[in-house]
């Protein structure tokens, strides 16, 4: 299985960078997410995660999104639901979410995703570009 790296459109701010490393299990998503067709973007990401999870290896999932729209949130929730199932099967997942201090709405979004998915998320305030 290969790592997954998506930075297809570096000049288009509405596609995030996806950097999932197979060897270490460190998976990071950063930037902004509000592309028109969220399904086409996130489908390969979710497929990769499902395939990786078959190996029962630990995952460290780092989120450094400065903005995501409501359509993207559906797929972020789907990833968290996958992690919840993975955890319930006795595997290891750590989710870390880094957000800008001056963005209380992002903190609200994160807490809603925690409530809806049941996954613990470590939340950190940082300076993000």
């Amino acid at each position: 299985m290969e790592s997954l790296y998506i930075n297809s459109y570096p000049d288009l701010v509405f596609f995030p960078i996806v950097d999932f490393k197979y060897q270490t299990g460190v998976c990071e998503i950063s930037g902004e997410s509000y592309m028109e067709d969220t399904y086409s973007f996130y489908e390969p990401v979710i497929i990769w995660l499902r395939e990786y999870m078959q190996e029962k290896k630990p995952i460290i999932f780092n989120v450094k999104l400065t903005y995501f729209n409501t359509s993207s949130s559906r797929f972020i929730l789907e990833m968290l639901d996958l992690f919840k199932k993975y955890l319930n099967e006795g595997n290891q997942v750590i989710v870390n979410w880094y957000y800008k201090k001056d963005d209380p709405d992002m903190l609200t979004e994160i807490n809603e995703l925690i409530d809806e998915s049941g996954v613990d998320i470590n939340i950190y305030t940082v300076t993000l570009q």
Partner: protein
Amino acid sequence: MALSSTYNDLLISYYGPFSMRIISTIGKHLTENINASEITKMKLYRVFIELCQNVARYSAERHVLLDSSIIGVGTIHIQNNDLYFKCTTVNRILSEHQNVLIKNCREINSSTKEDLKKRKEKFRKESTILDTGAHIGLIAVCLYSENQFEFDVTDNPENSATYFSITATINKT
């Protein structure tokens, strides 16, 4: 739909196809060049993106881009005074959709914050994989702006078209 008049500066006004490049360029301008606190700028940005993407997805007036994709056409205005920003979109809708749209808008505006969060959670869970809209854009606009939005449906007798306008108000902090 008339814009608020004398006491608001018009910061941005655009009519045309709501492609992602247009939306992202205007959005970038908002975050980098608007004089407001970071919290207010992010609220305005979030509201702006959601309203614009609703136009892109649901406007009954469509435009074919060079890459053959089809995108909604509409108008966006952003106004500003000392106390708030107002973000308005206007787009054509099918007349048979207006009753449902009015009903949804009234329900959202009359809901408490907690009710809106529950509706948002419900729609997010129920949306199908192929439903790119997620049905929760207007709910998100109300939650982010922390104000009821103004909306209107009007008929233009000149072209027999029906138009939906929505204005979100974002208080400056």
